[in-house]
């Protein structure tokens, strides 16, 4: 398939570029080229198509036109968006549910290979819900917590409990708006019900339920997933890791794990270090098993175990094209069906593991937590057995990789700002209040082949850093910055404005903090809440000078995340196309929903969702919002180069002087 765009317009990542050239040589299609050939449906893309019933699909392309049932364009758009949000919430939350089941099984000793690694976090989390911790074993506490968390999914009435961790004022807004989720499953089911033919047909009312469904994700399903992952596998703390295709090794059995849940991948990590497996690999002629990750599975094991990331979403096909991957092991979410066909050009085995996910033509080895370690070893053996099928002539591993320091859980951020005794967000709040840090941007979300891979992410990140905006990232966006070297302490000295540089140097942090996978966006909610609680930045999240961005979004999960962030008070900017853009130049009022989720939601929640395709405009809107929030708090306006006097630079200069001069320069004349 000939490419229609310049290679740079496919990806800004040189490793990806090499692989795309390789794909061309081999005549293999990828998501990049398929995107060229698959023109997005402009009517569906604008949210103007309704396929909710057999009377349609109805395409509303004229002003005043309605569906067969009489549904107006704004109702149809609100329903379409709400269904997407429900699907996104369902995906994250189902992940959370499985984690709760795994915690229960671990507490009861029924999960092979798992244990409670972070007892401290278990106790802290349990205490929030008044689960007794004193004098009880971790297993007893975990058992109760697992029951409580499991019940959040099927709960019918009342309020999901994790949301009590939001700022008080925010909780009040949710109660007043009647959007505090009752139970995770109930909200998703109700979202599907309400959007069925002939149900809820008032757009604002439908979208209010979209808020409730998204909150069930952010302040329940996802939060549960993050909590339990930390409890079972350890709360992340900074660790040195690597990212990009160069982490694939030609002398080892390469197993790439791809998907989202840490339960399987953590077991593969354990199995890959098992002497039996190492011996098995050696017997097969390899030096061992080299594990690497793609997408959020990569983030999960990167931030906890330092296992390298082979890349983000759009790297999944490219990794196989190195010709050196013995197996790609996948679980759930964001796994392209194209992998199977692509793998047939190489020796790579595509192994599905989730009971929820099978792909035609892939090998299915179903994951079962009761035999997790055994199954993990079985999978690795399949991969090792496949090593002999690798064709060295086809191996092309780009020698490109970058180091990064992931692992910034909110617990660690709290610690890093004050140590064991004085941990707090005070220094961060102080930095924002003085203007050393202008504001915070959370840049998250996917890759999307409709734009050059990583381009929007990194363009926005790099520019904001120069404007003293501290960046936190999750998901595929995080891997984009990692591949570029922005997640190293060194970047905190060279890639940032002078005020942010001072903070990075004081704390020793990269200017871009990797906070985890996409389900871990709840960590960002927690950070924002703690910043509010620390004082000086208002009394609710909507007052904090912060913005959320997803420049290269593509999944429905991203829409769910955006919505729960808006409902939490955040300004969220998406790049690319809006699923409810309408065609305002051709169809009157077809952008009513687009405006409602911006100005309408802002009136109620203080947060809003906007779609801005142009990166410079995205940056301008981010800075304008941050400056507006600073002004509202009465903070001094940000000034370029106002700060930056402190740090090691002067010392390093002097240390390079000859001894005599050095003494004099540092200590002055000797004491008498």
């Amino acid at each position, binding site marked *: 398939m000939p490419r229609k765009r310049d290679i740079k317009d496919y990806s800004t990542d040189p490793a990806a570029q090499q692989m795309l050239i390789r794909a061309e040589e081999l005549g293999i299609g990828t998501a990049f080229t398929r995107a060229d050939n698959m023109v997005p449906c402009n009517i569906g893309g604008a949210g103007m198509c309704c396929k909710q019933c057999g009377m349609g699909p109805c395409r509303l392309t004229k002003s005043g036109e309605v569906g067969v049932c009489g549904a107006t364009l704004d109702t149809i758009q609100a329903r379409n968006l709400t269904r997407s949000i429900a699907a996104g919430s369902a995906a994250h939350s189902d992940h959370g549910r499985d984690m709760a089941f795994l915690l229960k099984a671990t507490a009861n000793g029924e999960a092979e290979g798992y244990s409670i690694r972070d007892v401290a976090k278990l106790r802290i989390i349990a205490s929030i819900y008044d689960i007794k911790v004193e004098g009880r074993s971790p297993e007893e506490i975990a058992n109760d917590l697992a029951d409580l968390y499991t019940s959040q999914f099927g709960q019918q009435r009342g309020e999901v409990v994790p949301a009590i961790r939001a700022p008080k004022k925010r909780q009040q807004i949710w109660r007043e708006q009647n959007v505090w989720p009752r139970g995770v499953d109930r909200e998703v089911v109700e979202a599907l019900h309400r959007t069925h033919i002939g149900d809820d047909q008032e757009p604002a009312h439908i979208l209010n339920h979209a808020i409730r469904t998204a909150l069930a994700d952010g302040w329940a399903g996802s939060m549960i997933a993050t909590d339990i992952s930390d409890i079972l596998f350890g709360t992340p703390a900074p660790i040195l890791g690597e990212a990009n295709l160069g982490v694939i090794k030609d002398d080892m059995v390469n197993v790439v794990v791809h998907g989202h849940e840490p339960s399987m991948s953590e077991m593969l990590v354990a199995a890959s270090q098992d002497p039996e497996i190492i011996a098995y690999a050696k017997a097969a002629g390899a030096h061992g098993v080299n594990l690497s990750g793609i997408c959020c599975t990569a983030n999960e094991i990167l931030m906890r175990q330092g296992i390298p990331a082979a890349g983000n979403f759009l790297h999944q096909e490219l990794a196989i094209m190195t010709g050196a991957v013995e197996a790609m092991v996948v679980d759930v979410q964001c796994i392209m069906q194209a992998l199977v066909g692509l793998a047939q050009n190489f020796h790579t085995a595509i192994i599905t593991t989730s009971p929820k996910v099978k792909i035609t033509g892939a090998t299915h080895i179903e994951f079962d937590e009761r035999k997790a370690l055994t199954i993990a070893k079985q999978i690795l053996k399949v991969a090792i057995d496949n090593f002999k099928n690798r064709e060295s002539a086809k191996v092309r591993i780009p020698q490109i990789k970058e180091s990064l*320091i992931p692992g910034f859980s909110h617990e660690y951020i709290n610690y890093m700002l*004050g*140590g064991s005794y004085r941990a707090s967000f005070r*220094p961060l709040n102080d930095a924002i209040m003085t203007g050393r840090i202008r504001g915070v941007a959370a840049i998250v979300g996917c890759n999307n082949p409709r734009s050059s891979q990583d381009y929007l992410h990194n363009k926005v990140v790099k520019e904001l850093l120069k404007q003293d905006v501290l960046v936190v990232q999750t998901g595929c966006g995080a891997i984009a910055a990692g591949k570029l070297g922005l997640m190293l302490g060194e970047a905190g000295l060279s890639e940032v404005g002078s005020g942010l540089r001072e903070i990075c140097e004081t704390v*020793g942090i990269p200017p871009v903090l990797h906070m985890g996978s996409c389900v871990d966006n709840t960590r960002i909610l927690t950070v924002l809440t703690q910043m509010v609680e620390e004082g000086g930045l208002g009394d609710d999240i909507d007052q904090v000078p912060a913005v959320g961005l997803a420049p290269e979004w593509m999944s429905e999960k991203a829409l769910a995340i955006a919505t729960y962030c808006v409902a939490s008070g955040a300004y969220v900017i998406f790049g690319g196309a809006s699923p409810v853009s309408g065609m305002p130049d051709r169809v009157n009022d077809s952008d009513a929903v687009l405006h409602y989720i911006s100005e309408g939601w802002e009136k109620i929640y203080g947060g809003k969702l906007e779609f801005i395709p142009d990166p410079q405009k995205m940056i301008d809107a981010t800075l304008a919002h941050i400056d507006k929030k600073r002004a509202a708090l009465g903070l001094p306006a940000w000034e370029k180069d106002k700060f930056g006097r402190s740090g090691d630079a002067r010392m390093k200069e002097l240390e390079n002087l000859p001894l005599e001069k050095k003494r004099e320069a540092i200590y002055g*004349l000797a004491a008498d």
Partner: protein
Amino acid sequence: MSKYIATRAMRGANALVTEAELMLNRALNEKGADTPVSFPNTAYYLPTILGMTGKSIEKLGDLQFVVKYARDMLHPLPAFAKWTPYLGETLDSGMATLLAAETIEAVRFAYGLQPEPMPGFKLAGGTSFTSPESGGENLDGHLNGPIDDIQLRSWGIQLVDGRMPGFAAIVGCAKSNAVAVKIVRELQRRNILTFLCGNVNGRSIIHQLQEEGVELGYNTFTVPFGTDTISAIYALGFATRSALTFGGLKPGQSREILLYNKERVFAFVLALGEVDDLKYAAAAGAINFGFPVIADTVIPEILPTGVTTYEHVVSMPFNQIEGKDDLERAEQLVQKCIEVRGVKVKVSNVDVPVPYGSAFEGEVVRKADLRIEFGGKHSRAFEYLQMAKLDEVTDGKIEVVGPDFSKVEAQGSMDMGIVIKVAGRQMQQDFEPVLERQVHYFVNGASGIQHVGQRDIAWIRISNAAADKGFSLESFGKILHARFHEDFGAIVDKVQVTIVTDPALHAEWLEKARVAYDFRNKRLADLTDDKVEEFYSCTLCQSFAPNHVCVVSPERLGLCGAYNWLDCKASFSINPTGPNQPIKLGKQIDDRKGYWQGTNDYAKIGSHGVVEEVSMYSIMENPMTACGCFECIVMLIPEANGVMVVSREDTSLTPAGMTFSTLAGIAGGGMQTPGVMGVGKFYLISPKFISADGGFKRVIWMSSVLKETMKDEFQAVCEREGDPDLLDKIADERNVTSVEDLLAWLEAHNHPAMAMEPMF
């Protein structure tokens, strides 16, 4: 942090923890795990360890826990490239350093190597060592070592009322002796408590000051801890104990203790000369307390805020400070320190030819340095302040009536009287004694001048150094004029001072003064609780002890001894929104125990709901709370049906099996504990002293220092109580140290408490 500082601090921490481990292991081998370890005269064991870990260290063996605890807080050094964050890790390493340093000092105490010996050194007041070997208070031949609880508590009131705005821990060695002196003088001038420690290449600021003849010790607010950096731990032990003593915090509440210091204790570290790994490590420890570090050399700066209130680390290379000479640079350096910590300083501008500030209040003028004295054995001195009408006083007029002292030989004496006339629209006759008592503090603030006593038993000395600089009789007038305006400007509009040395006039004025003293005594005796309609609150200590409130009545002065009812009344006139507010008594609920509607209501508000009711006259029921600055502790001895009174100055073991310091932990912190009360010593002679429980006759044991120093007052009380021999029936630590002995003593001396009704 910066990576440079982080690296050096972590390296320093790693080294010191290892050193502590080695020293401890050697000590365990040589002396055994059961060897007791302690700092002198403190109830807080090894205070930093106690505060941070909650562990009471009593034996060498207990320290093994501390070393392990410290080791667990160490971290690998930041990587050269691709580093992980280091701020939190450095702060933890700093804390490990402090725990290791305290461990080392404790081991050194076990070997008798602390306080650090320094032959020929004389402390100007300091921690007394009551061990048999040292033979009582011995201030020669060694540095101070840790500050004892006695001094901590007596400084307490000055720390809380702002006279002492904070403390400076100076580590290292100044550029020159002159600079060292200037820095210390600048700090003293601002009444900042100064701790000295550390060295650069073996030379310490302590050596520099000693060579220049600067008096070091409690009396001059300048305490030499030791000539190594490790001894800086005593500053943090002092800070920790401030939180435990005045903040009502409990051992192990490490975060709260550190935040208390950040918010309430204005302290900073001044690093003079080269900063080595250990100094960086100790500084990282200090930053945990919110204490910033200022260096006079080039070090990386850390200007963002958060762990400290203002900048964390500031570098002011001495030679680059603007100033015409080194002395001006030294002055600028101190100024910067004060800015960085946000210390609130009030400097008195008194036009006298010697340095002036509260830090000089405790200075002693020894016989050998004496130019002249007024009062004492060979002459008479008095001071008399009277109120006059506005048109009778010429503000600023200072008159010397009679000869000056130029004709008096060296070390001689002469009669002198200080007569002060004040006028002001808000002035009241009742304030005369309040203001007159200030003469003591005001005059003492001049360097080289010593003032003792009051009224007609005043005794003032001028040193040769002060006289050489031109200090004259007129200088007394200048001091008093300036200070009365500054401190009492709200009630005093005009001040005129006459210094009388003319023999005839001296006798005449002395007679007038005595008439006034007598009048005031009668007025005071008449001023009883039932003759006033309002008491006063005193919340001065709330900056340190947030829930404590004193209720001050005419017959019960504040527990610190510094504020009586008249003082509070004057203070209210000076500052109507200040810490002393009138409490309208309202309905009397119980005259015997001393409950009023007004005092109860106030107790609730003033203590922020911690205390519901307060009894003015009982120790057994809702007794008044205490901050930590009390002069003595009164405590029930149930077996003896009476109370013992322990003085702050008494370091011995009481019959209750505890020392003052230990008891103080029970009495302080703003909590009501029936049977225990911290009080001002003059409350002991009040007719209302635990009158609901039987009054002074309940006193069955009393520290001898009190018995001796207030003998006359107590004798009068005994007569008032109808038992003139009572004082001799009260036991003290010289004859009774256990309850058994006490009971035998009371029996043998027929103490009235034995026959009184049961106390509870």
